[in-house]
């Protein structure tokens, strides 16, 4: 019987796996991808020991660290359900079913969707959730960035050097991102901020050719070829319905990364821990694993 199943292989999951391997626990990692959000982050300048490293580079280092140990990893699996089965834990994915004594949920967060007509059809056809990745393809084109927070401003800053015109479509009456980022945008005549604007539909033929919005109650169409969705993140916790979650869907944990159910632990961005940072997720992953270790030592399963 496995000691531990770890869901997710971002900073929290990988760190938990490394700690578990070093304690000779028998573990399995079940995950959709490796690296999590760290892999799609831009520049990282606050991870101690690295004055500067890019997200992908750091993610590759994490992965290399994990692969030093003989850890079984099931990649490309979507978790459907976790449940209690007697004293054990059952994890069901779209590809298999696994059992262990304990679990650490470290499934992170993902980009929020717009949920408007056209979004699905035009994904990768002009609509993208990764400005860092796809931005360069929109050279000299007109684009819209949806959102008014830091990630949206970050995308707009990247794009203003590439695109011909950048609309920032913000649902609120003011843009909320950091002052330092707003400063970078101000005075750039390529950037147009549209406040009080709700996205209604993504338009296009084969590729995106427009965005329909309602601005201050009036419908308008922006003739854009690119749409960058940056409206925040939601936790990947739908499969963890048996666990207590807060109003945002984050799994509630205590100092020891324990959830409300015995044997179920959680770590990183999927939890209600304050502040979502790579370094915090790593710390939380290690803390969760050490809690599991103590739990196994004191519970006969």
């Amino acid at each position, binding site marked *: 019987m496995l000691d531990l199943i770890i869901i997710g292989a971002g900073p929290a999951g990988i760190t938990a796996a490394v700690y578990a391997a070093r304690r000779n626990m028998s573990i399995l990692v079940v995950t959709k991808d490796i690296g999590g959000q760290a*892999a799609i982050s831009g520049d990282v300048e606050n991870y101690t020991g690295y004055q500067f490293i*890019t997200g992908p580079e750091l*993610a590759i280092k994490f992965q290399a660290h994990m692969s030093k140990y003989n850890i079984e990893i099931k990649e490309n699996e979507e978790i459907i359900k976790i449940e209690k089965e007697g004293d054990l834990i059952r994890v069901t994915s779209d590809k298999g079913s696994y059992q262990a004594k304990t679990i650490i949920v470290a499934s992170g967060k993902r980009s929020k969707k717009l949920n408007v007509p056209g979004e699905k059809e035009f994904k990768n056809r*002009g609509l993208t959730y990764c400005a860092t990745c796809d931005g360069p393809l929109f050279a000299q084109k007109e684009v819209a960035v949806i959102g008014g927070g830091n990630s949206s401003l970050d995308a707009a800053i990247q794009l203003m050097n590439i695109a011909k015109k950048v609309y920032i479509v913000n649902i609120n009456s003011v843009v909320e991102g950091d002052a330092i980022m707003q400063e970078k945008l101000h005075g750039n005549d390529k950037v147009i901020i549209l406040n009080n604007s709700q996205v209604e539909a993504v338009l296009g033929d084969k590729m995106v050719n427009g965005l329909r919005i309602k601005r201050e109650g009036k419908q308008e169409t922006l003739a854009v070829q690119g749409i960058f969705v940056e409206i925040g993140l939601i936790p990947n916790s739908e499969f963890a319905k048996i666990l207590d979650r807060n109003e945002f869907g984050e799994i509630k944990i205590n100092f020891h990364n324990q959830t409300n159910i015995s044997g179920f632990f959680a770590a990183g961005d999927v939890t209600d821990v304050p502040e979502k940072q790579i370094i915090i997720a790593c710390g939380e992953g290690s803390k969760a694993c050490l809690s599991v270790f103590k739990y196994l030592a004191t519970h006969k399963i």
Partner: protein
Amino acid sequence: MEVKVYSTPTCPYCTMVKEYLSSKSISFQGIDVSLDKAAADEMIKVSGQMGVPTIVIGSEVIVGFDKEAINKALNL
């Protein structure tokens, strides 16, 4: 089999795809679509979309770092 990876320098999954192929000793042609407009148009034509990485393996077109699809196309 001819393998092409259409990518941008800032795209992390592109880096991962290339590292993955290298780790399996698969040689490939890396094409930076941010520098080469004609290559970007070619990628859009071949794949009908504009997300990177786009990987072309023989007649197979794979969008994103889909390890399983890559393995299948390469018989790994």
